[in-house]
């Protein structure tokens, strides 16, 4: 749906915000673009949407080049910006209709009503925008972006500063849009958001795309699992029998932690050079250690992201 090839952007200040980025976004997917502040996420979105001029490279949206065929390309895109940039003295419904008009779409009061209702804005349709709360303004920005029924929706930090309820509402909305065939690209600091919604994840840092991966595959490939055994009696040290498992003993001697790859190939918990969990449990029993309880935990996308970004120079 979106094809980005060798895209670079160097601002007049000399700051190189994007360096030879190439990326293909598939039709109908939810793509999460992750990266720390200043990584180049917003620059990338701004170039695709026509707000920033690229220094090099090409971008096409559904086959339409964003420079030479900008009308067709932009008509397919809706953008929800990061900042709450709304007018103040206009009324909600008028403002959404204005956005639809800008994209050359004929008036459609029924669609606008459905849209405002789906975003819980219908009751506020005649309210002045400046009287809306921050969350309502965020909803309004989404309504404006969807007013022309785009095929691609860019959400730049959509849930920054919004409450939990609104965040959940937005996640539901994004899922609904995906079911309707809309391609969604979101940037976010909340990795929980990407973990919850994204089909694929791209990690960008210092203007370079470090990685693009199917989310599930990424978590499988780079994720870790931890098995923690709560012991009935504290241990002074790890018994020799358990040495091959490279266990970590808690300072109080009451917990043993086994860390292993999340990828499950062959025996459960097995990775090259790592024994299986079942072997560990047998070895623990053979050592005469009484286990009171056990728990497992899988690493989150956030931990994977942090480790990826830390690896970068």
């Amino acid at each position: 749906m979106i094809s980005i090839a060798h895209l670079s952007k160097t601002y007049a200040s000399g700051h190189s915000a994007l360096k030879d980025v190439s990326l293909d976004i598939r039709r109908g997917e939810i793509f999460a673009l992750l990266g720390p502040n200043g990584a180049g996420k917003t620059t990338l979105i701004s170039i695709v949407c026509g707000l920033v001029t690229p220094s090099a490279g090409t971008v096409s949206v559904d086959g339409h080049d964003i420079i030479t065929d900008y009308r067709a390309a932009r008509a397919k895109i809706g953008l929800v910006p990061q900042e709450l940039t709304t007018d103040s003295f206009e009324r909600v419904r008028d403002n959404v209709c204005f956005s639809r008009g800008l994209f050359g779409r004929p008036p459609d009061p029924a669609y606008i009503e459905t849209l405002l209702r789906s975003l819980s804005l219908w009751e506020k349709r005649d309210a002045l925008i400046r009287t809306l709360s921050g969350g309502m303004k965020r909803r309004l920005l989404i309504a404006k972006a969807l007013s022309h029924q785009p095929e691609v929706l860019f959400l730049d930090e959509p849930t920054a500063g919004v409450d939990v309820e609104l965040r959940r509402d937005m996640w539901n909305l994004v899922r609904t849009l995906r079911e309707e065939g809309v391609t969604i690209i979101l940037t976010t600091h909340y990795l929980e958001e990407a973990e919850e919604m994204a089909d694929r994840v791209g990690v960008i840092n210092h203007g370079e795309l470090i990685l693009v991966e199917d989310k599930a595959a990424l978590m499988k490939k780079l994720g870790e699992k931890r098995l923690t055994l709560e012991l009935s009696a504290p241990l002074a040290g790890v018994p020799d029998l358990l040495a091959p498992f490279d266990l970590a003993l808690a300072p109080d001697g009451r917990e043993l932690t086994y860390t292993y790859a999340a990828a499950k190939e062959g025996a459960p918990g097995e990775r090259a050079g790592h024994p299986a969990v079942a072997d560990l449990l047998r070895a623990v029993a053979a050592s005469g250690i009484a286990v009171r309880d056990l728990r497992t935990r899988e690493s989150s996308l956030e931990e994977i992201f942090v480790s990826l970004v830390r690896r970068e120079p």
Partner: protein
Amino acid sequence: MNLRAIRAIYVFEMARTLRTLLQSVVSPVISTTLYFVVFGSAIGGHMADIEGVPYGAFLVPGLIMLTLLTQSVANASFAIYFPRFSGTIYEILSAPVSPLEIVTGYVGAAATKSVALGLIILATAALFTPLTILHPLWMLGFLVLTAVTFALLGFIIGIWADSFEKLQLIPMLVITPLTFLGGAFYSVEMLPPAWRTVTLFNPVLYLISGFRWSFFGLSDVSVEVSLAMTLGFLALCLVIVHFIFRTGYRMKS
């Protein structure tokens, strides 16, 4: 051509005028009325006719032009500056709208407002002084042409300005003085020869002169020269606007 986008921008801007009716319409009408009361009735009553035209009537084209220039610039500059200031310009820049369509929407709305204001002032003036318009179509032509040209200038100022102070700078320090010194309240024939020559370098003189000619058949310079100067200024503004969109000056990084 994205006509719906032009309409959307135009309607959005006209709605802003209606919301600020007091500031947009009533305020210029009151200040113009005060000019008529002070210069037309109080002082003008003691002044001789100028080439057979009573001073009160002679003032009318100059006062309309004064309002037209300042309002065209103010409306268009604010219209484009405010979305830049608030950040809502992103919506215009990311829409499938060409530079021509953007300019047509903003400049069209600004020019419409100032032409309407000019006509309201003309109607107000008729209450104070008997008026005849010898060439009504030329009068309308000059009115529209000047409004569009100065709305374009206002658009350029709105793009150039990076603060509200700068937004006011050119209207306050350039346009208003040029209008006052461009024969709004007098005929250049009344000036000493040296100053008359200096005045010929004031572009606003040609606008006021042509506009006054459409009322009374009197002009400081020939109507052809007035028209040529106005069209020349319009072309210059269009070239600058073209440069702005071609380079993304102060709009895109």
